[in-house]
Each structure stands twice: as C-alpha cells, then as structure tokens.
C-alpha cells in the first residue's frame, strides 16, 4: 500500500516538475509547479510527518500564488513565451552539472550510511509538538534569525513599495485627488 502510494506520487511529482522545466508556456509551468509542490506533501504524510505535510501545502500554495501574480503582470499567460537562447549547449551543461552536484550532496551521506537521528522521537509527543521541541531548543537561533530576516524583508518591502502610504486612496476625497492632479498638470 505504502509502496504504491510512494511510486504514484514520485512519478506525479517528477512529471510535474519536468513539465515546469520543459514547457514554454507560463501558465503550464506555474500550474505544474504548484501541483508538484502539493504532491510533495504526500511524502510527508507517508512518513507520518503530518504537520510538515500540511505546512508544505499551505506555504507553497501561497508562494506559487504570488508567482502567478508576477506571471500575470509579465506574460500573456495564454500564449507560449518565445525565449531568446544565446547558447543552449552552455545552459544545458551548467544546469546538468548543478543538478548532478545537488544529487551527489544528498546521496553521499546515504551511501556512507552516516545518517543518524540526532533528536530521536519523544514518546507520547504528537507530531507538531515534536517539531516545536526541536525548533525551540536546538534550532532556536536559526529560527530567530529567519524571523529577523523576514522582518527586514518586510520593512524593506514597505519602504520600497509604500511611497504614498500616508495617503489612503480609500479615505482620499475626490476633491483632494482633483487638486493633486491639477497641481501636477500645472
């Protein structure tokens, strides 16, 4: 049962990400990316990590949704995008090497059987409790650093995007808007 589910989702995920990479069509690429990311959550569920599976779904639906927003702005999503490739051989070689390196990095510890659970499962603790325990003891500092980075990114975003944040379009009276436009024209 587990094997069937694993291979089904493995094939589905691989096919989805292949579509993402190979297609010239922005809408296909984005949809396949979203589907692949959601199918990955199945592996977490299969391994009994329900919490991480649900988080995978929630995080990536939101993240890919933001990509759609960009896709909408930059492309006509119903047409294929014509790319200008200067040197397809170089691109192929570089991506191939990069992919192989990543595979080697992940496979090396498995081959040498060096993987040990540093924090064995606590008896009686639920799935989400266990994530919490590791996150707020061993990984507290990375967790907080990530939070600070997000805060910095948020403030930077507000500063960059919010040049007229003190004028609320909702509360702005029509007369004020007209006056502003007149001033700009004058």
């Amino acid at each position, binding site marked *: 049962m587990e094997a069937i589910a694993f291979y089904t989702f493995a094939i589905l995920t691989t096919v989805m990400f292949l579509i993402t990479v190979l297609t010239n069509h922005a*809408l296909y690429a984005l949809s396949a990316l979203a589907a692949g990311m959601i199918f990955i959550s199945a592996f977490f569920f299969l391994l009994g990590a329900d919490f991480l599976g649900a988080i995978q779904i*929630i995080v990536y639906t939101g993240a890919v949704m933001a990509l759609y927003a960009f896709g909408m702005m930059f492309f006509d999503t119903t047409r294929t995008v014509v790319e200008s490739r200067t040197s397809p051989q170089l691109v192929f070689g570089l991506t191939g090497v990069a992919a192989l390196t990543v595979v080697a990095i992940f496979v090396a510890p498995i081959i040498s059987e060096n993987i040990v659970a540093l924090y064995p499962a606590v008896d009686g603790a639920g799935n989400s409790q266990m994530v919490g325990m590791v996150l707020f003891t061993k990984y507290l500092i990375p967790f907080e650093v990530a939070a600070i980075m997000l805060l910095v990114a948020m403030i930077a975003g507000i500063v960059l995007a919010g040049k007229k944040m003190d004028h609320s379009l909702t509360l702005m009276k029509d007369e004020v808007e007209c006056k502003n436009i007149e001033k700009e024209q004058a």
Partner: protein
Amino acid sequence: MEIAYFIETVIKIVVILLVFSALAGFGTYFERKILAFMSRRLGPMNVGPYGVLQIAADGIKLFTKEDIVPTNAVGPIFKIAPVITAATAFMAAAAIPFLPQFTIFGYTVHPIVADVNIGILYILGVMAVGFYGPLLGSLASSNKFALLSAARAAAVFISYEVVTGLSLLAPLMMVGSFSLIDFNNYQAGGISDWIIWSQPVAFLLFWIAAFAETGRTPFHLVANDHEIIDGFGTEYSGMRWGLFFIGEYANMFFISFVIVLLFLGGFGDGSVLGALGFLLKMSFFFFFFLWVRAAWPDIRPDQLMWLCWKVLMPIAVINVVITGFVMMF
C-alpha cells in the same frame, strides 16, 4: 479489520459526497428564496410546490447545456480548473467531524473520514488550494474580465490567508491541538466553556475571513456581477460552471461547520441534543452568508486590502500577543 475499516471509509466518503452535492443544490434554492423574501419577492415558485423542484430544473439545464471551450483558451487548464474547486472543497471535508460518534447495529461510527491530528491546518490548507480553481480558470480563458478576476483572486487569497491563520493562532494556543475533535472536547462542558467567550476577537476575525475564503458577498470581488460580469466564470458554461458552483456552496457549508466546531462548542457532549444543536448552529452560519448577501453592498478591492492589512491583521497580532501573556501569567 483492515477490510472493514476500508469499507467504512469508502461508505463515509460516498455519503459525504452525495449529501453535500445535494446540499449544494439546495443551497442555491435556499439562497434564492431567502434573497427573495428579504426583498419582498416570492423567488422561484413555478417548478414544483414553492419552487422546490427548481433545483432539478437547474440541474437538467446545467447537465444538458453545450459545453464550450473558447478557441483561444488554454484547453487543459481551462478544463481542470472547475474540478480543482469542487475536489478541494470535498477533500477539506475529510477532517471535519460532521456528527458526534454514534452506534448503529452495535457498530460504532465516527462520522469523520480521517481524524488526523493536524485537522484544522489540513482543512485550511486544502481550502486554500481551492483558490487555484478561479485563478486558473480565469487565467486560462483569455478574457479580459476573467483576467481582472484572476488578479483579484490572487490578492484576496494572499491577504486573507494571513488573517485566517493569525486569528486561529490564539484559540490554537489555548487548546494546544490542531484536531477538531480536541477542539470539541475542550468545549464539551457546556455553553460557558465555548471558546467564543474567551476569544471573541478571534471569532469575529475568523468569521470575516471566512467570507473572503468562500468569496461571499462583502468580499465577492472575484466574480462581481456588476463590475466584471462573472469574473472567472465568464467563459464557462454547462456543468463546468456548475462545478464551480458546487465547490462554492460546499465550501460555505464546510466553513460553517468549522466555525461552529472551533468557537461555538461543536456537538458538545455528543448527545442527540448536542448533535441537533450542532446542525442548528451550522445552519445559522450558512443562513448568515445569505443574509449578508441580501443586506450588504460589495466593497471595492482597495477597501478589501485596507481592511485586511491595516485593520484585521494588526488586531489579530495584538490578540495573539495578549492571549500569550494571559496564558503565561
């Protein structure tokens, strides 16, 4: 045992699918009737007594209508979009306990398909995936109004997900579990134990966000009839459009169940009275969706964003902080 469990699960899934597909149909009838009564009309009256068979007439119409895929549309995506809406709505239902457990012919039935220990996270996650239906449908149909609808869908989704999550955080901290059954047991002591009394702000925020999640009237921007025709539904016809509709109404029912389970005691101690009360409370929230549609105008997209980021989100964060302090001391 394995086989019995398997059969039981399949039966539960089929029952939920049938009941809620039918209820979605009845939902349209209720909506038309209630909207009519609120504006002193009669609503559907011609087909069957008091127009009850209007659902059957609509169903026949939707099933037999020609199914058009526009020439310039992106075929595969256009076809799969309504399926996503309907399928995710029903997938979310897997973690909702619809009734307290009961015994029939000496066999104890748990009316929940899968009591996963991350229930509420799973439900919200899968309901969020449901937003891909309108988004993909509108991007694929190569229609200007649909494209506007897609932009609005993305904006509403990205902002209101934040409010839903943050408003839920405070009650989650109190209960200490993601399972809806645990939520129910936490409030099993009676009306005074309901989370709504200790978390009224979270309740209101979640309720408001539920309107955005289901795309109902004050936040009905994705398919706002008087501005952008039917938004994502403009190019759809026949049963594909019907699937969007089933998904929307099923979502309304499921989110009503979730609100009651989270804040209003769910089915209480599990007695027959509790179960009846559960269904009554759920019906009130469903009715409220329709009531709001009759009573309120739609708000503009910029007002929606303003409300989310400048009002609801700060309140939600303050609520979480206060809850944390109260729990600590």
